[in-house]
């Protein structure tokens, strides 16, 4: 005791730290995603779990390989690869062959994150790149393997042909009328709660909001990005055939709260985040209304990801000076 012990550490301050760690944040995000997965299980059956596991495995294997190749510290346990895998799975149709997400996850992780130097250095949201790559590689499976919900009425009749937005995109007003007629009066409720055809994680706005509320409560995300994404989408909703369906489907909620808020690929200051979110919302609307895809938030987010470094340069934090202008 009390003799100069050999274990004394020397370092500069501060000597205390907040309890937050990167791994803790990532695992909390994963936790917040669980309700949506459980809901998808109830609606589409256990196959969604297999897809999620396949996608997660793909991401984890690629991350481990990238760490080995680059000879850096093994980071697969920090939860971020699992997070990317989960998010990727959430963008996929529940009827897809279960080996495909594994390939998609692996490619996305390796090319988006591994090649750029790992967590913190990627420019694009990993899950979204995965989805885009899968759209290019497996176009048929990505757009046709929908599963009719086991719960509720919406889409029962439309079986697994396509999501509502895709049907409307192809068939116009006639398709919309048919769809609404088939779904009956409960259509808005079914869409909000998530009893309809759609991608695994995006069917239920309620479950996504539940997860998001947890992240807000824990101070992990802020509202600037999600609110401005939703506002941007809403601004262009009147140009669509069915503004209600437009707001409630197509992954907007998942994108706004979980994809666009990814720390690494989004700006830091409130102003930057608001411009970023509005940009995503407006681009989503432009793609949907006048572009070739029925959905579009995936590409909108990736486009804005490119702008993130510039937004960080344009919108700097306010300094503690009278004018607040950075040097």
């Amino acid at each position, binding site marked *: *005791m*009390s003799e*100069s*012990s050999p*274990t*004394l*550490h*020397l*370092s*500069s*301050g*501060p*000597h*205390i*730290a*907040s309890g*937050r*760690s*990167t791994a*803790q*944040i990532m695992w909390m995000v994963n936790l917040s995603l669980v309700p949506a997965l459980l809901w998808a299980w109830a609606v589409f059956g256990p196959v969604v779990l297999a897809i999620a596991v396949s996608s997660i495995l793909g991401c984890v294997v690629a991350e481990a390989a990238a760490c080995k190749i680059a000879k850096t*510290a093994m*980071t697969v346990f*920090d939860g971020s690869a699992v997070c990317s895998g989960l998010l990727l799975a959430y963008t996929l149709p529940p009827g897809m062959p279960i080996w495909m997400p594994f390939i998609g996850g692996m490619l996305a992780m390796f090319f988006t994150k591994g090649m750029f*130097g*790992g*967590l*913190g*250095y990627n420019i694009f949201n990993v899950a979204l790149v995965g989805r885009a790559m899968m759209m290019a590689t497996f176009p048929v499976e990505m757009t046709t393997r929908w599963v009719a919900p086991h719960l509720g009425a919406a889409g029962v009749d439309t079986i697994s042909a396509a999501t509502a937005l895709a049907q409307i995109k192809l068939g116009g007003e006639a398709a919309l009328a048919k769809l609404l007629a088939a779904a009956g009066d409960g259509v808005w409720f079914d869409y909000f709660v998530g009893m309809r055809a759609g991608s695994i994680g995006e069917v239920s706005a309620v479950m996504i909001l539940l997860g998001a509320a947890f992240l807000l409560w824990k101070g992990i995300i802020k509202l600037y990005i999600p609110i401005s994404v939703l506002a941007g989408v809403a601004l262009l909703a009147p140009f669509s055939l069915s503004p209600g369906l437009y707001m409630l489907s197509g992954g907007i909620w998942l994108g706004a709260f979980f994809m666009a808020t990814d*720390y*690494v690929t*989004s700006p*830091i*200051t409130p102003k930057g985040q608001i411009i970023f979110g509005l940009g995503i919302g407006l681009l989503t609307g432009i793609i949907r209304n006048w572009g070739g895809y029925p959905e579009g938030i995936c590409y909108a987010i990736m486009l804005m990801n490119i702008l993130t470094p510039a937004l*960080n340069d344009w919108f*700097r*934090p*306010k*300094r*503690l*000076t*009278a004018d*607040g202008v*950075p*040097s």
Partner: protein
Amino acid sequence: MSFFSWGKAALPTFSRGGIHPDEHKELTEDLPIEAFTPTTVSLPVSQSLGAPAEPSVVKAAKVKRGDVIATVPGGVSLHAPVSGIIKNVQTGPHAALVYDTVITIQAKAAEDEPEFAEEAGWQDLPIAQMLERIRDGGVVGLGGATFPTYRKLMLPKGAKVDTLVINGSECEPYLTCDYRLMLEESDKVVLGSWLIAKIIGVANCVIGVEDNKQPAAEKMRQTIAALGLEKLEPKVRMSVVVTQTRYPQGSEKQLVQSLTGRLVPKGGLPLSVGVVVQNVATAYACLEAVRNRKPVLERVLTVSGLGIKTPKNLRVPIGTSVEDIVAHCGGYSADTVKILTGGPMMGRTIADLDIAVTKGTSGLLFLTAAETSLDGYQACISCGACVDACPMGLEPNRVSQYMEAGRPLETERFGVKECFECGCCSYSCPAKRPLVQFMQVAKATYRRHERKSK
């Protein structure tokens, strides 16, 4: 400021950033200040910012408590904190400078120990003489800055100052020495504050105390009412303002904003917005120097942390070694991983127990692995926590990225030169990045570069 505090009358605080770490003040806040005098003291001669000091005593000389033992040209002197024999004048360790000339005194009571009794009529001394006594008393900023106080109080010609801010924030976790001083010596702190207000010629003095030290604020208020300051000339309006408990409330710029609403301009001093800031312990020391002609011979410090057997608030002679304090406090446990001088946010680690208490030592902390972080760091995930926490509105994340990329001389625009190393950024970083260290290295690179290009 948060969503949930809407509607509640918020206590004053600074406008941007800041953190609220676990306070750990409960370890020592209820322990009265205890005096402890070791048998030998070793004083590094450099005890204040500025020119190096020169010893003015030689080995084997006899000194009396309060004698000058080292001088600084244009600075403040160092005094023998105890009577005794000079045992040694040689190179030895210094907490901040690594090495310094160290004067060691073997304590031995003199027959005629000086009493430092109160001098009548001290209130009416000419200002110049008051300043002289503060200088000769070796008073420096005891909050840790150790800038010679008389220099800060000698206002430049034409300076317009209307407010004195007395800093009783003690925003560093663990530390309770200023709190105890306000509780136990409130009359001296209040009189000292009045004295400083008189010296700089202001009629308004605000004492800032954080919300977690309500008893001290209450005690200071009672003392102001009880002392009958209105009988003193000039009249100074004294008030105690309770601020939010938020680190770094005790930093000058932040405290000035919290208490007066004024923003100190970039690179400027509080003086430029009409404010002078002094710490409560410094006010106390000024009073003793002027009223009792007692130089700074001792200081109150907090010995705390889960590693030390019995935490204490101690009053020790300057030059008391960490080793003697450890022995007096029952030793430290084997799971202590860091020993610090100062608080856990801005304090320094020490490697050896032969380091001595200097005028700027406000605490001695023995931290176990459970209290401190020894983790390695990871890549920045751009979460923005550091930017949100920075009270100056700087971008430590960008600085750290540029430093890692080997581009230190491109970091000025991210605020490197405005950083005062409070540590809020590193504290908040989930990737545990040593952001303050990156800031320090960037600053040092600029200094070297600017010297070279001159």
